[in-house]
């Protein structure tokens, strides 16, 4: 039999391309990205100067730089909450909503996968969360749950619950039949089938959905702040800044929140790759065919 594992010598002889310190991306790629960003900023600055585009339409990179300097590197930052700190408040609520929707969505997915009756009763309500514009419901929900973080988190859960429930349900329904029969031949107790087959099979599904849910949670958290009287979030700050024509503040806030979303997305992707490669949960050699 051919041994698929590499010997130590083979591993030592294998030369990897030079990679940057943190993201496992080749250094050359990072340099190209930085250079292209520099060129884009330069063209943007010069074009706006040439065509004399007013600040209320869009800011120049120099306006953004001035704002960033004032916001983060002067005494202003010690006296007032910066847009970064406000973003963290929104992220905290997004994080709570994300974790709760993952847990509740998984539980619902497991329940509706068990039989058709559960599916027929619960699925229309879950589907409803996909049909209605959930963030617009925030003021109605606020009547019951108040105008604070609870409503916000509830809206994030409603926003996220459909995709995760459906993904969990479909994964369980489509488990290869032979594996279910095998476990059934050992035990009739569902808790063992759940522990040894269903739970490990759900790992890749949950990981892949976490990537999209994390960005969706951040978006939902920010949008929901607009109709609510939440004072600490970045969504409300963007709204107020826009009304006061603080356009560079709006742009920098959006850039910060986008970068944070990207950071979470990358972190979860890395985590997903690590878990899938190391543990191989839910990887079946044979499907139902």
């Amino acid at each position: 039999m051919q041994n698929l594992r590499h010997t130590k010598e083979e591993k030592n002889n294998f030369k990897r391309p030079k990679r940057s310190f943190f993201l496992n991306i080749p250094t050359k790629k990072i340099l190209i990205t930085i250079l292209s960003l520099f060129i884009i900023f330069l063209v943007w600055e010069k074009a706006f100067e040439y065509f004399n585009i007013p600040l209320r339409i869009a800011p120049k990179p120099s306006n953004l730089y001035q704002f960033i300097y004032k916001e983060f590197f002067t005494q202003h930052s010690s006296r007032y909450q910066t847009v970064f700190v406000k973003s963290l408040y929104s992220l905290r609520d997004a994080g709570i909503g994300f974790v709760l929707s993952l847990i509740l969505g998984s539980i619902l997915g497991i329940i509706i996968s068990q039989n058709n009756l559960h599916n027929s009763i619960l699925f229309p309500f879950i589907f409803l969360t996909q049909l209605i514009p959930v963030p617009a419901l925030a003021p109605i929900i606020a009547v019951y749950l108040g105008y604070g973080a609870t409503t916000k988190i509830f809206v994030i859960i409603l926003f996220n619950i459909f995709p995760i429930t459906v993904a969990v349900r479909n994964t369980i329904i489509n488990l290869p039949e032979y594996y279910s029969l095998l476990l059934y031949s050992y035990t009739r107790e569902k808790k063992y089938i759940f522990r040894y087959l269903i739970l490990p099979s759900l790992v890749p599904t949950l990981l892949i959905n976490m990537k999209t849910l994390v960005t969706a949670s951040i978006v939902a958290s920010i949008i929901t702040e607009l109709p609510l009287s939440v004072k600490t979030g970045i969504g409300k700050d963007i709204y107020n800044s826009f009304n006061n024509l603080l356009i560079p503040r709006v742009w920098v806030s959006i850039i910060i929140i986008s970068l944070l979303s990207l950071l979470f997305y990358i972190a979860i992707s890395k985590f997903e790759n690590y878990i899938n490669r190391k543990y191989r949960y839910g990887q079946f050699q044979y499907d139902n065919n």
Partner: protein
Amino acid sequence: MITIENLNVLFEGNGKDLHVLRDMSFSVKKGSFVSIIGPSGCGKSTLFRIISGLPTRDTCKITGKIRIDNRKPETASKNRDIGLIFQKPTLLEWRNVTENISLPLEIMGYEQKNRKEDIKKLLAVVDLTPYSNYRPSELSGGMQQKVSIGRALAYNPELLLMDEPFGSLDEINRRKMNNEIVKIWTKLKKTILFVTHSIQEAVFLSQKVIILTKKPSTIHKTIEIDLPYPRNTYEGSSKYFNYIKEIRGYLNDACN
């Protein structure tokens, strides 16, 4: 050990019922090796599933008597007297060879201390001791099937049901596995009911070969194979060849 009397299996459909097994009766003695052979789609796997006590579709109507040591298949299965080996090894990729073999023992609540010793012995029986820490995808198809045999033997069932276990292997590996299964059977003396497509395999392995007709399937002929084990040395003999010829003839009749 296994007694089947007047077994009829019917799948109810929309206006058209499908009669899969018709008036089937046969028995398998304790400690014997019996093969079932028949045309494709004749209901061999349905028979396998019914004997193993696994759930069937809601539309499946079963009449007749099936007994394993005078118990219903479901009871025998609950009492851990049936070991199943499917067409495909159905190993869990997130568990290594040792963990796959110990899966039924973990579920059935065997003590971890005893488990380790049992697994060691089983790894030796299926000749996989050096590969105990390998993942299923790192093994060849034949080795994967050996793991699934080890797993089926882990809780020491009296009856092994094997549904075309070597069907997806190439000829060389299939030959190897046939030799292995004979070795295991002569050592452990389990009752084996073996579903196969291959006449050669059935003659090489079994003491008795049951030939099924096409659907609605019933027993066309039962042939006793009177050759000593291991049968490698008899493969070129005229007696061995005659068995193959005889079964091929009956199988051709059964298909028409």
